[in-house]
């Protein structure tokens, strides 16, 4: 290795060590090679030296000796503001980066590679990492890398030859709030042994934590009198921290507030007696080697080793292990060797797949990465942003964070078209927060997603995923009800009972009158329901009469088809009578009609007159009930040129099929839906600026299409399906057109009043929040049918 200065910092605020590979001899040249360890603390701090204006913060061993901030007995320099503990700086209680930087500068400066230890757990979170890195940058430290404390301990053990390749090493680290346990796998990489970290350390909070120990020692130093102005100087004595870590204590003289001297002797205080370990010994017997890393000495150190279960005797590392491990890591960084392998905290978002919203891992689990390398999501999450949106919202979940968050990225200007954005993360192990990027290629821009600014969501991740599952409403199947009342005689016309009685025995029944009766809908009720059911109160005799008439009608039509019907005057009346029986109509009729449509010629007996096509199509839509026939009919309709459809023929037939059948919508595929949507839009557009006389089947078809959601639950939902946006815009146009008519004639006004609520219902259906399940019935009724 060339002569590069390397430095490993273990600045933890309890007992700091800095290991470096050079030594400056006053009056001689600097010597690079031998390891020098500069201790500082225990309970190190930084002090402000100099006056208000020109003063600077100084840390490291010089601050340990400084009288600054030790109380009024020392005069002006004793003011409390002149001293801040490194713990407070590390815990971010003090935002000033200069002070934290001075804690590092006080121990060593000028190395080409610096490695800094960082605790696992709460105090080593991503924010803490960034804070530390920012302070190091402020202190002009070059090539800084943060490395986890247990990893440094393992590096020290590797250097000492305590562990071998393939071994699983358990490391017990003594920390602020207790102990933490990490298991590392020793892995050979590029000629060196490097630890691999697969999960966050397990935290075992207990009274052995440094914080507790210092509190106990401080209480012992202050004595029974309690904290007061008279004992304040004892609380800041150096002996307190020494005693807390089990180091040998000699009597210490302290300056009191009144400048007198006081002697403190904590040599008889044994911290090991007052602190309890974890309640049960943690089992580490699956590890080949167990190392104990602590800054404490003496009996306390033994206590920590005893607090875990292990196969082999635990190995106590020296207090300087983390610092010397950091120096080893700095050497590896200088030579380009791997320091360690780390996993990355999982980061996920939600994407909308075909099956609905699903979790998407931006950082894959089980991925480990060499320290210092940048991880980039192998595959970005892809999100579709509907047109008109000004901002994109993304849900993010981090492994370490308690709650998921919802980040909103402003796009600046609303999107003109629906576009696709890609979301990915970049992260380095132990180098602060993941950076989340969003790329909107259509806008030609990249955005940064800020986790900190994102709003916290108290729900769990699965709850959020669930809540995003679009519960797009589906309009209920249209069933036109029947009622006995429709059979009764009314003021204006005879009832069906009478008609059946009159006509049943005639050779030539009045098909027209019968059909008209069946098509009548007093109080919204037909004689026969659209499913072909009869009102329950109908007597068997009447049913038989109806059946006989039906048989006659079939016979009549058969004859017509055979072209030996002498009486053509009746025309399609018998057929009409049949089709108004809805699904009660014999299946044979549907086949006739389909054949007729397929033939499409004027020579067909049913279609002598071109106005008969309406009956053929709509009749087919009314009677069809058999699945095989449905399939045939749908295929037949879709095989025609959809652009040439006539509103009251093909469109109406398709609308009937989709709205009344439970199975017909399932026959559509994406392509045919797209075509039908275009047809629907064309049907709407045809009416714009007119009196809306040819409008009725357009909303019907649209509502019928929504029933395709039976097959694709999130189809035609705004924000997910781009087709929905097209439909919404034509609805808006129609609404505007209807409302824009200044002084409508009474008929148009009536239509307008009927259609406007339907349009708004359709809109909410498109958004996926339909509130009117009987929308189809309402549309049917609006048409006056």
């Amino acid at each position, binding site marked *: 290795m060339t002569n590069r200065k390397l430095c490993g910092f273990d600045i933890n605020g309890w007992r700091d060590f800095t290991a470096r590979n050079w030594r400056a001899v*006053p009056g*001689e040249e600097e010597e690079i090679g031998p390891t020098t360890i*500069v201790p500082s603390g225990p309970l190190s701090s930084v*002090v402000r030296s*100099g006056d208000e204006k020109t003063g600077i913060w100084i840390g490291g061993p*010089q601050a340990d000796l*400084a009288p600054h901030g030790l109380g009024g007995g020392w005069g002006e320099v004793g003011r409390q503001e002149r001293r801040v503990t490194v713990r407070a700086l590390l815990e971010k209680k003090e935002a000033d980066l200069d002070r934290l930087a001075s804690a590092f500068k006080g121990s060593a400066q000028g190395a080409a590679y610096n490695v800094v230890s960082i605790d696992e757990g709460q105090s080593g979170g991503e924010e803490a990492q960034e804070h530390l890195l920012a302070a190091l940058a402020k202190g002009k430290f070059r090539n800084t890398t943060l490395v986890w404390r247990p990893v440094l301990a393992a590096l020290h053990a590797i250097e000492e030859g305590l562990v071998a390749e393939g071994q699983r090493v358990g490391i017990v680290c003594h920390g602020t709030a207790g102990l933490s346990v990490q298991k590392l796998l020793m892995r050979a990489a590029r000629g060196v042994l490097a630890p691999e970290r697969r999960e966050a350390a397990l935290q075992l909070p207990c009274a052995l934590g440094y914080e507790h120990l210092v509190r106990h020692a401080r209480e012992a130093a202050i004595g029974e009198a309690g904290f007061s102005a008279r004992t304040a100087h004892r609380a800041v004595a150096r002996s307190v921290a020494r005693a807390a870590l089990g180091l040998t204590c000699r009597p210490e003289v302290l300056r009191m507030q009144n400048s007198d*001297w006081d*002697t403190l002797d904590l040599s008889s205080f044994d911290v090991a007696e007052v602190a309890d370990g974890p309640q049960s010994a943690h089992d580490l017997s699956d590890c080949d080697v167990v190392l104990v890393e602590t800054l404490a000495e003496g009996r306390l150190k033994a206590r920590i080793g005893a607090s875990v279960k292990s196969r082999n005797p635990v190995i106590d590392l020296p207090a300087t292990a983390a610092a010397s491990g950091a120096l080893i890591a700095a050497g590896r960084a200088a030579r380009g060797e791997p320091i360690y392998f780390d996993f990355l905290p999982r980061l996920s978002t939600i994407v909308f797949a075909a099956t609905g919203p699903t979790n998407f891992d931006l950082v894959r689990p089980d991925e480990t990465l060499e320290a210092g390398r940048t991880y980039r999501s192998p595959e970005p999450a892809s999100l579709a942003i509907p047109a008109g949106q000004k901002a994109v919202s993304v849900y993010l979940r981090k492994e370490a964070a308690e709650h998921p968050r919802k980040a909103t990225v402003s796009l600046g200007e609303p999107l003109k078209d629906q576009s696709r954005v890609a979301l990915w993360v970049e992260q380095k192990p132990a180098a602060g927060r993941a950076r989340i990027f969003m790329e909107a290629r259509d806008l030609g821009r990249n955005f940064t997603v800020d986790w900190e600014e994102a709003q916290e969501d108290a729900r769990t991740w699965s709850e959020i995923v669930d809540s995003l599952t679009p519960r797009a409403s589906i309009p209920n199947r249209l069933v036109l009800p029947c009622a006995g009342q429709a059979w009764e005689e009314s003021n204006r016309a005879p009832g069906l009972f009478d008609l059946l009685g009159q006509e049943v025995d005639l050779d030539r029944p009045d098909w027209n009158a019968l059909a008209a009766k069946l098509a009548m809908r007093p109080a919204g009720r037909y004689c026969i329901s659209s499913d072909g059911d009869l009102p329950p109160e109908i007597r068997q005799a009447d049913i038989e009469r109806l059946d006989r008439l039906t048989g006659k009608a079939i016979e009549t039509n058969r004859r017509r088809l055979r072209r030996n019907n002498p009486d053509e005057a009746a025309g399609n009346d018998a057929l009409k009578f049949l089709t108004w029986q809805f699904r009660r109509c014999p299946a044979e009729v549907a086949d006739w009609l389909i054949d007729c449509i397929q033939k499409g010629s004027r020579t067909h007996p049913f279609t002598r007159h071109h106005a008969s096509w309406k009956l053929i199509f709509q009749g087919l839509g009314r009677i069809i009930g058999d699945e095989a026939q449905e399939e045939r009919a749908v295929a037949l309709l879709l095989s025609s040129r959809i652009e040439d459809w006539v509103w009251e023929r093909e469109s109406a037939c398709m609308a009937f099929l989709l709205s009344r059948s439970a199975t017909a919508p399932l026959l559509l595929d994406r392509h045919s839906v797209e075509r039908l949507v275009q047809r629907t839009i064309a049907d709407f557009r045809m009416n714009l600026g007119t009196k809306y006389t040819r409008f009725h089947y357009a909303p019907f078809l649209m509502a019928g299409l929504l029933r395709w959601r039976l097959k694709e639950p999130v189809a035609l939902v705004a924000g997910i399906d781009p087709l929905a946006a097209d439909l919404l815009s034509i609805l808006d146009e129609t609404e505007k057109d209807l409302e824009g008519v200044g002084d409508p004639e009474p008929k148009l006004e009536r239509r307008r009043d009927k259609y406007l609520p339907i349009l708004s219902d359709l809109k909410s259906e498109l958004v996926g929040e339909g509130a009117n399940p009987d929308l189809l019935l309402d549309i049917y009724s609006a048409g006056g049918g």
Partner: protein
Amino acid sequence: MRYLTRPWSSHGLQNGATFGPEDCLFGEREGEGSLGQEAATLLSAQVRGQRRRLVLFPYPKREAALSPARQGFPVRPRKGHEPATEAEIEGARALQHMNEVLARIQELEEALEDPSNTWGRLREAWRRAEDEEDPKMAEIVRQSRHMLPVLRDLEKRIRRVLRRRRELTPLDRVQEMDRASMVWLSRQPGTSIAERAGSSQRILATVRRENFDTLENRVLHAYARLAADVAREWLREHDRAKASTRFAQVEGFRKSCKSLARRLADLGVSVAGADVTPNYVLMQDKSYREVYECWQRLLLRQRTEDDLWAWQAQTWTDFAVLAIILAIDELEEAELIAQSPISWNAEAELGRWFEQDRPIAVFWLRETGRIVEVQSRPELPGTQLSLARAHVALRVSDPTRDELPRRVAVWTPHTLRRLELEPEANEAAMLLQQLQQLAANEVLRHGLIMTPARGKAETIEAIRGKARVRAIALGPAGADLAQGFEAVRDFVRSEIYGGAS
């Protein structure tokens, strides 16, 4: 303002008299208001309800200066000149003394690299400084080792540029002409070019000539000359180390610098001024960059030398304080309980290299049960100390408060010619004796005078009644340092272990 030639002397400078090289340049002022003169305040205290200030005046840069009138001072030798006259030799000696004091102080900066063991490391460095045959590290020594290969490399590839200039060129050599040469040609008499070329058959044309006078070479030239001068000064100051490898190394470096400077002068390279803005080559070419950086470092030293020379007395005080701290720290039972952090300045300000809050150092003598505090330029000196005009002091107190705290006045008089210790010690003891009559809550009976030995280390003690003053002449290197430091050590021990008498 009263001008005082000695801090303990109550007789000021007589009217019309001037400060001379045997004098300390002190002044004492009572009352508020600005001094109106260039001076550094050493002590400021309320004495009998009135503000009293002890100030120090700088040494003049030349032989004499006014306000206050100073005359007959030795002058530093000019750069690049061997001292010839008596005055110049004296000046050179004073400069060497100053450099050695600075070296001791600067060793503190290096000792601070390991702040947990500052004093041990400094003591070790000072111990090595006692051996003059093994010269200490200095900037020029460092550069002589580091820069020699760099200069060798540059010598082989001195950067050159091709510059266009107009010259009378034989017709057959003309390759390019510019506007001015055409204008010239058009003005020549004759009808054809051959006629216009005249009898010498030459016309004005642009030619390209190699040129070495670039900024980076001018800097290289300036560096070579400066480094040779600094090296010679160092060699002169370390003539006792002729046998050492460092001496030989610096000597060799000086020679190659000289030859390089000569070669550059031959190539027509001028010398860069100190204020040049570095160009691309000086910043990006590795060797040239190193030359530029080293040159800047030497220049910085040159620049601050005036200031350091003027305020030598301040630097001397810091040196004396360090000596006392080292002597106390050496005691087995001494434990340093408080020491304000030392922050190093990039440049000396008024002769002071580092900043430090008070207290400078507080020791606890475990077995003896005493607290010893070293004070320098104290903020609140108290009446006694301020009347004694001692801006350094030791305070020995008993943490149990059984005994009155004792103070030891330390005077660090710096003069450009050696002081006669005996009369001075007597006079200082007399002052202390007079001060005994003052009622105070501290005992001030003992005093210490630390003054430059200038080749003759010496210790003398004067006793007047209960007052006792020890005068030590010590030096910053060699035997003067060894003997002087031993005397300080001796004084500290006697003061601590026998001081109660």
